[in-house]
């Protein structure tokens, strides 16, 4: 009876070792804090109405940022734990983590960073910025948007759930290669948590991909042909086309692994006809395009930033677009380079090696395009430009090591070594993460209404660069020394320990960089008034997102005017149009809780499938279907705002924020880090003094 009700769940699942308990306690405390604050400030209804059920891509974008930022901290703590273990665990010392636990930590680190941090930030940016860039008011399907977000959150909860129930995550590496991830070698619930957290958020991503493609292809401003779209929109389009092409492969593969584990089938097992190599092929058919999915929007961001801050049109627009397209096309044909060492033979290996080389061509074209854009420009080195310069150096390092790995005989010596780990961190941190930071610091004024503190921003940037070099250059060296990845312990005679210690110190410096980024945001909030963006266009931008207020009104644009050229806003500024706007009725989608309800049932179903609670799984799946059908009966999904109201709102807004010359608050009058520390100390002392006075 108990087995029927609870499946594999029993008291053993509760946390019983120090790390699990610590994790559980932190999550509980965090949750309690949020609940207490919301109750105290009586903001539950506000939260539900304004944010959780919102279908506004701007709000969903911000929610993506918040969740992704939280996961960045969690993934970063995982990274510090990994570095610390490897720095300590030499010779007779075995560090502070058991081998199994260490393996779970790096698996979680990889999954969190790729699926929940990078995808989260990228989706947040695309949600917020792409509709603004194409002069649309919303995405094509507001429902799919909110559903995709909440499925992502359900995945986030699943990947954190194991602290509370189960005390184990997959210990297989971030892609859970079979047969290690089968029940024979991983009998616990860890891999099941892995499967379902990725499966739900993967489906959310696919839905988001469909939505973005619909939006970009069908909702552009009149006159904006594809060849007039901004670069970030192009990067997002190519990325989303890849999403809808390869995420279904992931869905199917995870489903097959689930069948192996849940029903005892033999797709990927070592016995009874299973073929583990099939899993490797399938998962990398998804896995390689995934990293290009992450980096293409980043390329788009860099193109925008370079053009804007060089005050020059992007050089050879066509080449850049074709290059991005080439990257996405060829990304689909290189997956075997992840397992040259499996023994497929020289012909197969050569083919995939050559295809991998070919990707280097469009990537180089992109870099040359950026050089050509800066040539004879007038470059302002605000923080976004710094992130770009940092990206070039680090990404080139990653690219070169990638080309070396693409040569099969060289790969035989470098595969699964720390050289490989350094390679992909160089490309992902240098490309994707720096792209995200660049995009966020570039579009922050648009999103928040005030720009970020430049001085602390630059400090954070340099921390990241120094920390990165300190962490990853020794890693390349360790790879050359023959150090394998994922080792929880190694011989003292290898001489690797000093390098691991250097890596750990580098990691601490990166942590300082992240802390400084948080400080940057807080300092900017403190100096909000001074840093305010009153015109909506603080950087003298070239694309349409700067043609509306900062932050934009909920309807984005009061009027959808046609577009005639690339760099639409620059053209408008040149022409100096002063046409009286013609207001029309606007249809906006209503908020809906359908996304949350469906995602909640999806979460329940996956949780049940992890623990083999069959009746609950059926309830969950039935719930999803019922909610979806119930939603189809809801005809009242839009509301209309009459033109007169829009006119009123626009005139009110113009009165409140008189457009003036772009805010030119001097960067060197921004708060410095030392100023910030002084302010914090003063505030702390004030609090203590007030408390003292009270007790008196």
């Amino acid at each position, binding site marked *: 009876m108990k087995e029927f009700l609870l499946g594999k769940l029993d008291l053993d699942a509760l946390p019983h070792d120090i790390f699990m308990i610590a994790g559980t306690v932190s999550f509980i405390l965090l949750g309690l804090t949020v609940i207490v604050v919301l109750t105290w400030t009586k903001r539950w209804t506000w939260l539900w109405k304004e944010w959780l059920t919102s279908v506004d891509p701007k709000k969903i974008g911000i929610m993506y940022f918040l969740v992704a930022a939280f996961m960045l901290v969690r993934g970063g703590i995982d990274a510090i734990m990994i570095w610390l273990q490897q720095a300590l665990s030499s010779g007779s010392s075995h560090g502070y983590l058991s081998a199994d636990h260490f393996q779970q930590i790096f698996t979680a680190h990889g999954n969190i960073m790729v699926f929940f941090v990078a995808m989260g930030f990228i989706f947040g940016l695309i949600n917020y910025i792409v509709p603004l860039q194409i002069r649309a008011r919303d995405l094509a399907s507001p429902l799919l948007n909110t559903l995709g977000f909440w499925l992502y959150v359900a995945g986030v909860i699943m990947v954190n759930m194991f602290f509370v129930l189960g005390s184990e995550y997959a210990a297989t590496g971030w892609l859970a290669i079979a047969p290690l991830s089968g029940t024979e070698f991983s009998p616990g619930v860890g891999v099941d948590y892995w499967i379902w957290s990725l499966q739900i958020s993967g489906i959310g991503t696919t839905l988001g991909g469909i939505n973005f493609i619909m939006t970009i292809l069908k909702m552009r401003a009149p006159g904006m042909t594809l060849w007039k779209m901004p670069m970030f929109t192009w990067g997002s389009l190519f990325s989303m086309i890849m999403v809808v092409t390869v995420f279904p492969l992931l869905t199917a593969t995870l489903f097959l692994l689930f069948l192996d584990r849940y029903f005892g089938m033999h797709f990927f097992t070592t016995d009874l006809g299973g073929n583990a190599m099939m899993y490797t092929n399938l998962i990398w058919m998804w896995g390689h395009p995934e990293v290009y999915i992450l980096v293409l929007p980043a390329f788009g961001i860099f193109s925008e930033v370079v053009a804007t801050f060089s005050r020059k049109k992007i050089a050879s627009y066509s080449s850049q677009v074709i290059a991005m397209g080439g990257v996405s096309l060829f990304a689909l044909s290189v997956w075997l380079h992840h397992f040259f060492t499996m*023994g497929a033979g020289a012909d197969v290996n050569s083919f995939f090696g050559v295809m991998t080389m070919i990707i280097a061509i469009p990537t180089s074209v992109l870099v040359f395009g950026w050089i050509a854009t800066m040539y004879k420009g007038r470059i302002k080195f605000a923080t976004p430009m710094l992130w770009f310069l940092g990206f070039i150096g680090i990404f080139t390092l990653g690219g070169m090591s990638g080309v070396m790995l693409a040569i*099969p005989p060289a790969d035989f010596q470098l595969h699964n070594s720390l050289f490989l780990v350094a390679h992909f961190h160089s490309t992902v941190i240098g490309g994707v993460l720096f792209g995200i930071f660049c995009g966020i610091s570039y579009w922050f004024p648009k999103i928040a209404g005030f720009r970020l503190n430049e001085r602390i921003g630059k400090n954070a940037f340099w921390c990241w660069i120094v920390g990165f070099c300190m962490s990853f250059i020794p890693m390349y060296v360790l790879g050359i020394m023959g150090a394998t990845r*994922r080792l929880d312990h190694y011989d003292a005679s290898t001489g690797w320990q000093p390098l691991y210690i250097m890596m750990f110190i580098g990691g601490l410096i990166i942590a300082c960089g992240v802390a400084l980024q948080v400080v940057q945001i807080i300092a900017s909030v403190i100096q909000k008034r001074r840093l305010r963006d009153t015109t909506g266009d603080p950087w003298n931008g070239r694309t349409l997102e700067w043609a509306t207020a900062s932050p934009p009104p909920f309807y984005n644009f009061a009027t959808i005017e046609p577009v005639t050229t690339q760099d639409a806003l620059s053209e408008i500024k040149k022409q100096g149009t002063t046409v009286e706007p013609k207001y029309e009725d606007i249809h906006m989608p209503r908020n809906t809780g359908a996304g949350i309800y469906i995602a909640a049932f999806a979460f329940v179903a996956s949780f049940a499938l992890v623990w083999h609670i069959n009746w609950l799984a059926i309830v969950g799946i039935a719930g999803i279907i019922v909610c979806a059908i119930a939603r189809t009966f809801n005809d009242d999904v839009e509301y209309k705002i009459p033109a007169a109201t829009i006119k009123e709102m626009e005139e009110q807004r113009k009165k409140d924020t008189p457009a003036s010359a772009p805010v030119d608050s001097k960067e060197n009058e921004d708060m410095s880090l030392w100023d910030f520390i002084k302010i914090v100390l003063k505030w702390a002392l004030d609090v203590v003094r007030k408390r003292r006075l009270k007790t008196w």
Partner: protein
Amino acid sequence: MPKNRKKNSPARALTLIIVGLSCLTLVIAFLLQDKNIALLHPKGLIAQEQLILMFIALGLMLLIAIPALTMLYFTAWKYRESNTKAEHEPSKRHNRSLVLVMWLVPAVFATVLALIMIPSTHRLEPNKSIAAENKPLTIQVVAMRWKWVFIYPEQNIATVNYVQIPEDTPVKFELTADEAPMSSFWIPNLGGMLYAMTGHNNQLNLIADTPGDYPGSSAEINGEGFAGMQFTARASSQGDFDDWLQKMKRSPAVLDTAEYAKLLKPSEDTPAAFYSATEPGMYATVLKKYGASEGHHGHY
């Protein structure tokens, strides 16, 4: 804020970067003085060829990367807004020839690399026998949790987590696994790795040209005891190898079915073991267990 500071800022940054990286390099070089930088100290033909290939690739890439990066950072510096002397053409129309160069230069490099890669991939294919004067030696390797079992079929001895080979002798390692996830057989000083998987018989050919002890490991995670799955590969002179064979023949332990079953049980940090005899056809039995045969060499 004094204007000088802003002007010198890029120069300061560049100096700091160069100084920082140099310090880092020096510290690392100092720390690694007499350590085994395995890939840079090839002790066999295969590893040597692989290293040469890596250097060629690196050289070609630096040939394009260094000018490109220099151009980029120089352009960024020259056209900074505080440099009023630089020209500013906000709507400069690009010329066709520039675009052509942008695409052709990387294409040429990629082609050259591909033309180098394809023949060398065929030449360095792991299952290709190495041509040498001495007669080749076959060693059958079974990856288990979490140890390596080496069977010498011709000499009828076996070892665990230790393998000895004579120098200048081509060695054919036949790799498979038993009750273990995918493992990767790797002796970095001697050459690249190859996967050892259940139901597959992969062939890795290596040769050592210098006597010495070389570390070997599994380069693919295969469970909790993964880090402890290390072995020593000793290359010795032919005479020393023959002596070792004699010593092995005097070892009390024997790798029979019972002992093999004991080895199959998962164990971590297994110490080296030596067996004076093995059951004949043991390796073939392992392959048959998973429905494969010895004729199946690596291509799946």
